[in-house]
């Protein structure tokens, strides 16, 4: 008998006689869907999580973003080759630079330049202030993983009320990686002092479009 069979024998004996397992999710799981504007609620929760939300007229949002990136010392703008939305924004930011554009492998290798990583988000969650980015369809996670600043491009129509709605798309066959990103990378491991940029981005920016 191998270890796995032996484990299941122990478990079955330990569980003993019992009724049937609950086959459906228990009712009443999610909190009442928030009333009113999901985008407005997301703005509140994302900001509370330490993120920065930019919305409104494109020209104004771009110049604000450019200024923000410069003040963070960003010199390189990184976007995935096949991400049209990210490319469009990154290219539109060049006049606000000086910024270099890159889609390249030097970022993965640990580039010395301060980098902003751009990516189109798949969804955003109003309840928690969360950006959802996944590897579905061969998408890369690197812009939100290894860049110093992460800029997510979030279509307003993709904002859902609660976590349940965001996960509903993945209950059948999830991709390798579903990431919930809620604000910058944080740590309070030294003297309980909240500090950003432990491993991931020091700044998390959501650019709301549409």
């Amino acid at each position, binding site marked *: 008998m191998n270890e796995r069979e032996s484990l299941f024998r122990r478990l079955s004996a330990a569980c003993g006689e019992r009724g049937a397992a609950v086959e459906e999710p228990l009712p009443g799981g999610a909190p009442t869907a928030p009333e009113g504007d999901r985008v407005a609620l997301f703005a509140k929760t994302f900001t509370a999580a330490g993120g920065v939300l930019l919305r409104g007229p494109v020209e104004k949002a771009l110049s604000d973003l450019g200024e923000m990136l410069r003040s963070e010392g960003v010199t390189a703008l990184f976007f995935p080759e096949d991400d049209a939305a990210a490319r469009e924004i990154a290219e539109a930011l060049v006049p606000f630079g000086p910024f270099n554009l890159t889609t390249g492998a030097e970022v993965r290798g*640990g580039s010395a330049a301060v980098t902003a990583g751009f990516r189109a988000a798949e969804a955003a969650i109003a309840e928690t*202030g969360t950006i959802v980015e996944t590897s579905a369809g061969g998408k890369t996670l690197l812009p939100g993983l290894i860049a110093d600043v992460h800029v997510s491009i979030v279509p307003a129509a993709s904002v859902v009320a609660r976590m349940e709605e965001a996960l509903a798309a993945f209950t059948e066959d999830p991709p*390798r990686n579903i990431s919930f990103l809620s604000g910058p990378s944080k740590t309070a491991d030294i003297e309980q002092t909240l500090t950003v*940029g432990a491993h991931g981005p020091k700044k998390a920016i959501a650019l709301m479009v549409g």
Partner: protein
Amino acid sequence: MELNANAFGRNARKALLDKTLQEALGRTTGRFQAHRDAAVAALPEFEATRERASRIKGDVLDHLDTYLARFIEEAEKRGTIVHVARDAAQAREIAARIAWEEGITLAVKSKSMASEEVSFNEALQGAGVTVVESDLGEFIIQLAGEAPSHIIAPAVHKTREEISLLFERHLGEPRTDSIPELVGMARKHLRAKFLSAGMGVSGGNFLVADTGSVVLVTNEGNGRMGTVLPRVHLAVVGIEKVIPRMADLPTFLRLLPRSASGQVISSYVSIVTGTRRAGDPEGPERMHLLLLDCGRSAILEGKYREILKCIRCAACLNSCPVYQSVGGHAYGWVYSGPIGAVLTPLLVGLPEAAALPDASTLCGACADVCPVKIPLPDFLLELRSDAREQGLKTPGEIAAMKGYAGVMKRAGLLEAIERIAGVLGQFFTKGKGISGLPYPFSGWTERRDFPAPAAEPFRKQWKIKRGVTR
């Protein structure tokens, strides 16, 4: 991790005299508690969510064989290689074999309490693998050669000066008293490790049965790095971490960060399923999952089954007056606070940790905050009784408890003693506690001070307060 639980009394005394630790504890537990309370108050559905989570976990434990089998089937379908370890020795052997077969020389590890149970790092190091802890707190205490003192804040006992000294000595960094600079040094050092490590090792907060997913909850993003960048991902997880379905995950995500640190959600939640798919630009080519029994199936069989509902939030630590006073190291093993006082004896055997169930005041604060409603004080009391039945208490302790019970049951005798004690006590203790009583009461005062008796006994004060005069 080396077991030293029965030395709780000695460890606690040492901790109480440790000034740095006392300052750190004062700074931490109160803040965690305040944040937790505020976050819970802000979610009107918290109680209902808690109730639901407790019921889901109850269903899982009643059918752990079914749900675990479902989880394994789904995980394997998506390329995960599942291993099962009955005990710590087997877990170490499997981990070392995985590292050897995958040709690993450097592994980056994110936080996993389960891996501490089996001394995972020693196993890999024995197989010639360098293991770098990547959670900042764990990294700091790894440099210091110590053990974690808090489930979610492992380096809570270290000051910035001590940390800067460690970084100077081990990383060659200049001294600084700036916390952001210290964080930046660790980031730079660990980033290089993430980019060159062959294997990322993680724990797992939840295992989702209907999809075969492993869920990781972190704030720093290290769990995320280690499960995306290296070629191999190894997750080390206890068998009780299964939840039935993806649709149940939000319930637990609403409870864990709120209970742990008072956050609505942690910065990162990673749901990872199997290996990288065809066409994925990154993600591990190989995914191993090491499932640990290590005493869990035995717990499942007995009266303490519900302890396996625990989601390791540490709210019970922060709320516990004993933990607040002595910190995590005093508990002498991986888990501390009320959860440690129950789980440690159950996992390592009561004779090895009989001192821990006594390390509580039974005030009930832990049960009040537990997000999955584990009856921790009941379990602590039950374990004390088990310890006595197994003859694990000293005769002095038993005699003291018997004498105490005998007196408490006789009102007249109690009153007489109270009067005498009140007079003598005021005279001898000057209102402070009594730290040494003769046998058999020394069973009590060996490890705690007995409060000085009041000049007027409580029952007399009570009567006066209610206007009853004699």
